[in-house]
């Protein structure tokens, strides 16, 4: 899968992406030149701490930036700048990029049946009949290892456990046959064995459908175990990226971040505390062009 992906043209190219937001007349630089590429079937782990810009990066890709945000740089999908998409092209892009959020209960309408929720997009935008939509929904639920799909379609969200509901959410986003899945902490709220199950399903989908995935997570072990490569964000920049990051991090921030995480194999007397800060970050990146991270990756 990885070898095949290596030769293919990138599905997504994010190039020197910047986002500025005006907060009470003060310009805040949220993203400062984020660059990475993603091929079909590839999984990228976007890791970093609160406020590092990982969610904003994904929002920019999903064209969900907050009102008043100014974007620079470019995001290309199959070689074309997504900023130029209008009308039917924009709608098509929306169906090709799917998003899964941390808490499924926030993202689903509690008073509508699972079936209505799942099939709405393909019935209203895809011109699929309700009967056909239901059939596809049941098939997709089976793919996500939910066997009694027909019964699930008649249920309400509160009747399902968190893990089951998150699988329903993933199934419903996949019904529009997306090429790229943006998953923002999709399993953080779930039990570990449920998390493992969902990761396994996503792995199968990557292999079977060539689905590319961007995982946003603060769980370095999860990202490292699942993804082809990691991109580590700090202060709105990717400080280090590539397939080596999890096994052999090179950037001082990544090294410190990895070391600060407790290890299930052994207990340490004291966990090392991060010394990397904005001052050091600025000193380190002074005079380095935004695309340097990309060069480093090659």
């Amino acid at each position, binding site marked *: 899968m990885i070898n095949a992906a290596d030769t293919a043209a990138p599905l997504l190219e994010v190039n020197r992406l910047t986002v500025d937001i005006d907060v009470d007349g003060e310009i805040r630089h949220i993203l400062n030149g984020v660059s990475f590429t993603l091929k079909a079937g590839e999984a990228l782990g976007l890791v970093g701490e*609160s406020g590092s810009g990982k969610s904003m990066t994904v929002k920019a890709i999903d064209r969900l930036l907050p009102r008043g945000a100014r974007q620079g740089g470019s995001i290309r999908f199959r070689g074309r700048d997504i900023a130029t998409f209008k009308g039917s092209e924009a709608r098509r892009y929306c169906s090709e990029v799917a998003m899964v959020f941390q808490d499924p209960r926030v993202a689903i309408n509690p008073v509508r049946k699972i079936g209505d929720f799942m099939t709405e997009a393909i019935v209203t935008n895809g011109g699929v009949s309700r009967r056909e939509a239901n059939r596809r929904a049941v098939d997709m639920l089976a793919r996500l290892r939910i066997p009694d799909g027909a019964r699930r379609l008649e249920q309400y969200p509160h009747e399902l456990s*968190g893990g089951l509901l998150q699988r329903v959410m993933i199934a419903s986003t996949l019904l529009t046959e997306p090429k790229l899945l943006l998953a923002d902490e999709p399993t953080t709220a779930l039990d570990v064995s*449920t998390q*493992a*199950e969902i990761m396994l399903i996503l792995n199968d989908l990557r292999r079977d459908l060539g689905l590319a995935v961007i995982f946003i997570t603060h769980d370095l072990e999860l990202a*490292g175990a699942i993804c082809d490569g990691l991109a580590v964000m700090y202060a709105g920049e990717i400080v280090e990226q590539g397939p080596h990051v999890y*096994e052999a991090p090179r950037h001082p921030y990544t090294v410190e971040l990895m070391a600060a995480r*407790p290890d*299930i194999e052994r207990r340490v007397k004291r966990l*090392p505390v991060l010394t990397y800060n904005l001052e050091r970050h600025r000193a380190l990146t002074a005079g380095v062009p935004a695309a340097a991270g990309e060069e480093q990756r090659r």
Partner: protein
Amino acid sequence: MNDTATPADVALQVTSLRKDYGHIAAVNDVSFRLERGGSLAIVGESGSGKTTTAKMIMGLETPTAGTIVACGRDRSTPARGSAERRRRGRELQIVFQDPYSSLDPRQRIADMLAEVLLIHHRHMTAPARAARVEELLGLVGLTERHGRSLPSAMSGGQRQRAAIARAIAAEPEIVILDESVAALDVSIQAQVLNLLADLRAELGISYLFISHDLAVVRQITDTIVVMRNGSIVEQGRTEEVLDAPQHPYTRLLRASVPRRGWDLRALREAVGTGG
């Protein structure tokens, strides 16, 4: 469990604890012991009964059967009167997962700490109280400036430190930490885990640590209780249980933790049989 320990060595003893909701036993025949100055983890997934167990220990739920003895005194039945409630508060405090919702948004941190001191140390003079507030802030690595802040002006890590300061202000014997570091960033989590270890060493507090994060459990606890469907499936020394889990469910939990060379296929088989 061995019964050689004298009551003075035991911070918390839970015996044959049971809680029924209708016909369902949410907690069934749960027994464990937390040594004085010790740190015990309760791990398990949703519906395992770990939170219900903690609620009964806190006095937020009444057990259907069984006993809870904290600091040598029974707390299986609800407290009678405010003096009893205060005494129980001095014995046992809790730090919740989410410092955003467990702090009063309109109360400054120093005032919050002073209020705890007013309740639990009524004869403390005002200057002594102010000095103690400052000391508590220092213990958790906060400054006087943080003391003057409202929770909204603080970061998540600072808020959780404030919640820990509030818990130790009453000088409790036992602190229940209910997923207290789960929502924190890695860098903040490391600081808070170090802080908890320091406080335990300095003050001799006992921790009851409720968590689903086995790496954190390894770092912060000595003993572990693994719960599933309301019952204990395995308990013992933390390192022994994590290194050589005996029960299939513990093995499944252990295998579900992402790590280098994570074998999802083998896990699927384990889920198929054990889950």
